[in-house]
């Protein structure tokens, strides 16, 4: 009886603590992956945007902060797609190369500024 209980206890402990370690180890890998994709991309783009920004700087130094800001956001855009693709691939146990995001369309940024403003405004005034 005592032996049985101990066996059960140890089984559950190994399984339970084991699963917890496996799950949290999986998250470590996920975090490292996200970090790598997000921040590596960011670094690449930072170089680019630094170049761009320095060119711009000569012309209209007032606007350059917001400009750099925008480019960073745009970069993050593409990172996000990459990460989403990776997540889908991971959940399907397939390589990223097998999946092509066909229908990802960027809504053009030409939409006038009031559009964005109204969207933001709307958040505070309406569901």
């Amino acid at each position, binding site marked *: 009886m005592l032996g049985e209980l101990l066996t*059960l206890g140890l*089984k559950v402990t*190994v*399984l339970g603590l084991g*699963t917890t370690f496996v799950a949290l180890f999986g998250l470590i890998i996920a975090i490292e992956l996200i970090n790598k994709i997000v921040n590596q991309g960011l670094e690449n783009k930072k170089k680019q945007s630094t170049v761009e920004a320095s060119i711009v700087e000569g012309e209209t130094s007032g606007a350059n902060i917001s400009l750099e800001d925008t480019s960073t*956001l745009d970069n*993050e*855009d593409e990172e*996000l797609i990459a990460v*989403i*693709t990776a*997540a*889908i691939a991971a*959940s*399907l*146990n397939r390589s990223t190369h097998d999946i092509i995001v066909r229908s*990802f369309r960027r*809504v053009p940024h030409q*939409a*006038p500024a*009031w*559009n*964005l403003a*109204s*969207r*933001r*405004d*709307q*958040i505070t*005034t*309406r*569901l």
Partner: protein
Amino acid sequence: MDKPFMEVILDFLGDSGFAQITWQQGIMIGIACFLIYLAIKKEYEPLLLLPIAFGMLLANLPLSGLWDPPTGTYGTSDFQPGGLLYYLYMGVKLGIYPPLIFLGIGTMTDFGPLIANPKSLLLGAAAQLGIFIAFILALLFGFSPEAAASIGIIGGADGPTAIFVTTKLAPQYLGPIAVAAYSYMALIPIIQPPIMRAFTTKEERQIVMEQLRPVSKLEKIIFPIAVATLSSLLVPSAAPLLGMLMLGNLFRESLVVDRLSKTAQNELMNIITIFLGVTVGATATAEAFLSPDTLKIIALGLIAFSFGTLGGVLFGKLMCKLTGGKVNPLIGSAGVSAVPMAARVSQVVGQQENPGNFLLMHAMGPNVAGVIGSAVAAGVLLSLFG
């Protein structure tokens, strides 16, 4: 628990979601992530799209049991409770959440511009054209009348109304209809301007409208009572939506129940928005969502929004003629509702032709009329097919 240890582990892994997930669910997770991206990065109606998308994500993770019904009898030992989303979804299924969201919207809506210019109600009626065009097309696409009615109501440009009707008439399409409704509402500034420009002349777009008369406090108090009474008498099925909308508005205009008004428009509405969004999103399981019907619904939703805009603009042109040029037809497009975005679109398109032209307040009239209009149209559809 007497099984060999390896078997226990294999059983456990076999019970995990990794072993059971289908590629369709994987695609749904991808769609959910994409909607989260739209909600956060593009700020497309994030208050509802973010919960909807996360609900969609959760519903497509196999075996979570979040969506399971209970088994056994409550209060006995064989009872197994259902999943969290099963219980929260009851408020959708029983038609409780949408009217309560309308209560909150009522406390936030100023009907003053509509009372000052009641004729704009007709624009709010005309802009419901899209609902019925989409209804006819949906019938021709092979949808049942009930489903067609639910699809058409996307053109009402009112999320809670669309969810309320769909839950009662065609719950199997709740996921795609809700996603389409909220996505297109966010896209109003992209959908409407080309249609508005194509069907109006430069002269019409430059019309400057007379200033609105001031509206007394008493009129604002009587208005919600009158609307609740009259509209519920003519279209009883619209009573849950319009009754709560007008109760909220009466809270607002009475000025004596400020604390109720604030709670209805903040905490109560936020709680219900979370529950509604997550559970409506969770109806979008792979088997319900990944079907050609979804693509049809998305196409029909766009048609509904476009023809709603068109109906409003054309009726605006008619009013312009009949009043001898006193009405700028650009305010007609605001009749689709999507408060206050559609009204802002009227303002901006008008200002592009004539920088000194301020149509916003004039467009708010048709804009809030559109909410009443689509609730009435929803009531008619519910009484015909409910």
